[in-house]
């Protein structure tokens, strides 16, 4: 087990620049970077805190997550990487409270998730943006309606929010497909709808499972820029990816997961180690 406290300040790589579009998307959200950042930091020190967490699937033989301990400070940006089957999605499932740990304690946004009522779980999820590896879009809704969905949980969205939805869809390159049904979209397009839906609600915590898995490199970067912009304005981001180049280019620390444990924390801007190097270190 590797107990992890990730407090290192993320560094941006040299070629990272925030484009104007990104800023305008954030402005449409009504973000005020410094204020929002301070608010989150004052409220709680750690956005996510896992203490000796294990999880074994009912049909599983060995634990998918094994005695995992780590903390992510509020307002931080981390990558989660590791080989296929390492347990990244399982960690995410615990984060969006689809499953509860079979052992150990999980704290989210300062709350012990083991003691939450169903209503509190719902309210906690409203503060999160979730990008699912399998998209989870509603086929009977148009692209635009899918993205609007998180805003409808509080009543009818305002005109400003609706405009913001259109801006975000433009930003992820789907401005021309807002009235399309998701079943008529490609994998990458579906993924971008899922991303738009996750960020539309100004989440305090954004967890994205392989958000760039189905898109080309340029679009991957564009999506990462959007996440960076949210992060700059106070959102804590945890992003699972296999894409080494993305991790290395964007200069945020990376938690390397294998066999349900964090094997290594790679500081921002450094090259990801080879599989064999990690095994040797472990």
């Amino acid at each position, binding site marked *: 087990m590797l107990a992890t406290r990730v407090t290192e300040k993320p560094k941006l790589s040299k070629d990272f620049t925030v484009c104007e579009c990104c800023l305008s998307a954030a402005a449409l959200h009504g973000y005020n970077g410094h204020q929002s950042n301070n608010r989150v930091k004052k409220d709680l020190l750690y956005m996510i805190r896992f203490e000796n967490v294990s999880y074994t699937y009912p049909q599983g033989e060995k634990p998918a997550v094994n005695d995992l301990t780590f903390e992510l400070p509020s307002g931080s940006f981390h990558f989660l990487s590791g080989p296929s089957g390492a347990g990244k999605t399982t960690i995410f499932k615990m984060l969006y409270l689809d499953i509860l740990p079979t052992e150990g304690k999980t704290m989210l946004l300062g709350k012990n998730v083991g003691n939450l009522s*169903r209503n509190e779980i719902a309210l906690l*999820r409203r503060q999160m943006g979730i990008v699912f590896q399998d998209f989870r879009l509603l086929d009977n809704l148009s692209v635009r*309606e899918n993205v609007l969905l998180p805003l409808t*949980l509080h009543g009818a969205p305002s005109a400003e929010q609706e405009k913001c939805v259109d801006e975000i869809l433009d930003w992820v390159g789907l401005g021309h497909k807002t009235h399309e049904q998701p079943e008529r979209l490609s994998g990458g397009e579906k993924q971008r709808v899922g991303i738009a839906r996750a960020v539309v609600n100004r989440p305090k915590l954004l967890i994205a499972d392989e958000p760039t898995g189905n898109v080309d490199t340029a679009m991957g970067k564009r999506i990462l820029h959007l996440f960076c912009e949210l992060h700059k304005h106070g959102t804590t981001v945890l992003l699972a990816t296999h894409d080494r180049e993305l991790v290395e280019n964007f200069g945020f620390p990376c938690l390397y997961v294998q066999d349900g444990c964090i094997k290594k924390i790679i500081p921002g801007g450094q090259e990801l180690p080879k599989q064999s190097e990690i095994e040797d270190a472990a």
Partner: protein
Amino acid sequence: MAYKVAQAAKKALSLDYSGANRLLLLMTIMLCWLIAVGAASITIFSNVYQVWQLNQQGQISLYLLPSSDDSEIQNLQEKLVAFPAVSAIQKLDQHKVQSLLQPYFQTTQAFPLPVVLVATVKPNIDRQKFDALVHTLAPTAEIDDNRAMLQVIAKTVNLSQWGIFVFSVILMGIMSLLVILTVRTGLREQKKALSILQFLGGTDAFLTNLIVRQIVLRSLLGWGIALCIAIAIVVCIAFIWPFLGNLLTPQVWLVLFFTPLLLPIIAWVTASTTAYSIVQKS
């Protein structure tokens, strides 16, 4: 709970896709119509019965021997008019007596006809004292006592009212079953949508409300359609048989409008409990 629900959320958990939903609308129209027409008819029936009962209770016939002399009859008439709650007393002429007795005897001519006195009385008459007075003044007089017959008719009316009540309870049971069926099949088809809405932060109350409002709106639509059909039929009947039109008191119209509203109320209660339990289990 948000009162104004946004289109996207409504569409997300729409029950339109389930066949049971159409069945619910059709059956609501039918059941509402049955209840409306049934309740209106029973109201007309009981109104007619009450008027008839008052008429019956308002008259007492006295049969005196054909040999009774005029002074005896005169005396009886005077004493009875003075009796409390008797408003008038009238001696029927021989023609009327003959026509009254015609159905019971084939050849009335062969017998001497009795003398018949008809007393018009108020409902608060003390029958025991009245009967006692008649017997002291004219010991051989027969008093026409229709109380037994009135009781039999009252029982029949009571029984038919109970019958209609039991029938209504059965209709309500059918309505509940239909609502349960619609919500269950509808939500089974919308399982994915339900779980996505939950991950986006939909509370149990919000999701239940999304389903319940669809059922309630549908049953209100059924009520409206059934009402239009029922009113059209009643107006036609009143047009064809004007004497029936006279029976349509404001009370009948009120019953016609509001009794079938019971079904949307039942639909609301059943849908709330069923949907809440399914949402909680999911």
